[in-house]
């Protein structure tokens, strides 16, 4: 058991049942409603994911919750404290993994943890006592004295995760924690986040990786244009919005095939680029038809969160802004 990360009885007592309440949050930037009447609650011990295309208002929502952006309307209560008024007091018990690593390049791995812990007002002795278990958690014990420049992307991300735990937070904000990582590094981060949840930590996660949300999130909200368009348990959401089976058809002539296809066999058929997506409760007729067309290639799979996401937010590209 890694003691520095284990919740004490005292902590679980002081953490409120609802860790974060956001009601009717609104934020306008330069004539655009970036967050437009968004409400959600996060229960203690759950992993709640915000899913949305670029520019949907995810990061702005996080900044508002941390008290770093002044909302134009609505109420936020973080760990029982009103935000932004008492955000600083709430942040004592919050950890943040930002979208872009901002590790201190002037310091070694261990020094990064020490210096960051001081910003929380922790005594050096307390931080030094926690460093070995934090490094072990991040699988970086062997890199204790390495410089930040020597670390791989995955190692930096793990160190950022360890750094967000230096104050033993009750709630951890993670803004796209695995963006830019290779699959191995991503799986390691997921495994660590599950460990944190097992220890009773609460996580607010933003992501646009559907498998990430599907694996980690107890509940999620799909947001677009600053407003919530769906919320619930991932499997329930998929079941209620999407047909059980998806057949993706691609290869030469896929789009022509889609145009001529008897649509009574599918509930929904969408063409995106060179691929036709067929959504059906019973895939048998489509599969029989495809057997007779060797020039077409296809993939039959169960519906997933990505299908839900694309159905709710559309297939067109979003601007990065």
């Amino acid at each position: 058991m890694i003691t520095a990360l284990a919740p004490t009885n005292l902590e679980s007592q002081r953490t409120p049942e609802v860790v974060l309440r956001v009601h009717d949050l609104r934020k306008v930037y330069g004539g655009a409603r970036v967050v437009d009447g968004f409400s959600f609650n996060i229960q203690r011990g759950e992993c709640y994911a915000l899913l949305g295309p670029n520019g949907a208002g995810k990061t702005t929502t996080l900044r508002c919750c941390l008290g770093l952006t002044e909302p134009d309307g609505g109420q936020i209560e973080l760990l029982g404290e009103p935000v932004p008024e008492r955000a600083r007091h709430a942040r004592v018990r919050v950890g943040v993994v930002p979208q872009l690593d901002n590790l201190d390049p002037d310091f070694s791995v261990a020094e990064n943890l020490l210096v960051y812990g001081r910003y929380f007002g922790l005594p050096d002795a307390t931080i030094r006592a926690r460093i070995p278990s934090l490094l072990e958690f991040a699988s970086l014990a062997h890199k204790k004295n390495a410089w930040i420049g020597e670390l791989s992307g995955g190692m930096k991300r793990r160190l950022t995760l360890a750094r967000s735990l230096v104050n033993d937070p009750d709630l951890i904000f993670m803004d796209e924690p695995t963006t830019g990582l290779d699959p191995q590094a991503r799986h390691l981060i997921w495994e660590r986040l599950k460990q944190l949840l097992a220890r009773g930590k609460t996580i607010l996660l933003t992501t646009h990786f559907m498998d990430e949300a599907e694996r980690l999130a107890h509940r999620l909200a799909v947001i677009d244009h600053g407003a919530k368009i769906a919320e619930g348990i991932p499997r329930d959401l998929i079941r209620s919005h999407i047909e059980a089976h998806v057949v993706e058809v691609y290869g030469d002539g896929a789009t022509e095939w889609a145009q001529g296809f008897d649509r009574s066999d599918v509930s929904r058929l969408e063409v995106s680029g060179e691929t036709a997506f067929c959504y059906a409760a019973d895939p048998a007729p489509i599969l029989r038809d495809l057997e007779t067309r060797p020039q077409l290639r296809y993939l039959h799979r169960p519906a997933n969160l990505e299908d839900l996401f694309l159905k709710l937010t559309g297939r067109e590209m979003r601007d990065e802004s």
Partner: protein
Amino acid sequence: MSSLQQTPTSLHPTTEDQARRRNVLFAAPRPSRRFIPVWRRNYLVWRKYLFERVLSNIIEPLITLVAFGYGLGSLLPDVGGASYLQFLASGSICMSVMYSAKFESLWGAYSRMETQKTWAGIMNTPSSIDDIVLGEVAWAGTKALVTGIAMLLVIWGLNVARSPLTLLALPVVFLSSLTFSAMALIVNSLARGYDTLSNYFVVVVTPMVFLSGVFFPVEQLPGWLRAIAQWLPLAAMVDVVRPLILGHLPGHLLRDLALLVGYGAACYYVALILTRKRLLK
């Protein structure tokens, strides 16, 4: 939670929104002990390069004083009752201290704010922008004070001045450094890139050195430039530090200190407002 606001958000900020934003930006400085970890962070980086830093702090003034003071000074008459070497030494301690504070609060602070995003990391903790700005000013003051002490050691070592009054220059060095740092942090908060910092140096800092009596007495300037010079913070610093190095009491101590404190306090507040404006989007 308090009462609900059900009115739809306007696309344009209402007067109420603007007033709230103003209150956040213009709030009085809220100093807290949390500036200390910010100071310690910068100190820890500095300590890693201690040897190089101290060496350059000593070698640079040595070169200036030996080359200009002895070389040029031997060709020049006494200035105001002191040798040119003494005149130059007492001016260049002010210049070096100012450069030290400015560099730290321009290139140093800008790197931490923009390039490394160190400040963004700090803002996710209970420390706030007010703590960061205070920590940066205090750190720049400390670093420039070390520069001042190194200069004083060179001045003593070369036997340019030995009066015990020279020690009284150090509190003035520290105070002036805080002022210079606060001024630089205004530029930092408005900078669009490293070019802004260089431009400020060329357009503001370097001319100020020539107008403040570092290399030659202010009296040599034409009347209109002298009128400007008497309001410059570096001129006020030189006006106090030079007599102390040369072994007598400054003539306009209260006026000069009031000028330095006034500039410092005003610039600190403005830097704070502009930094909040930049980072609390």
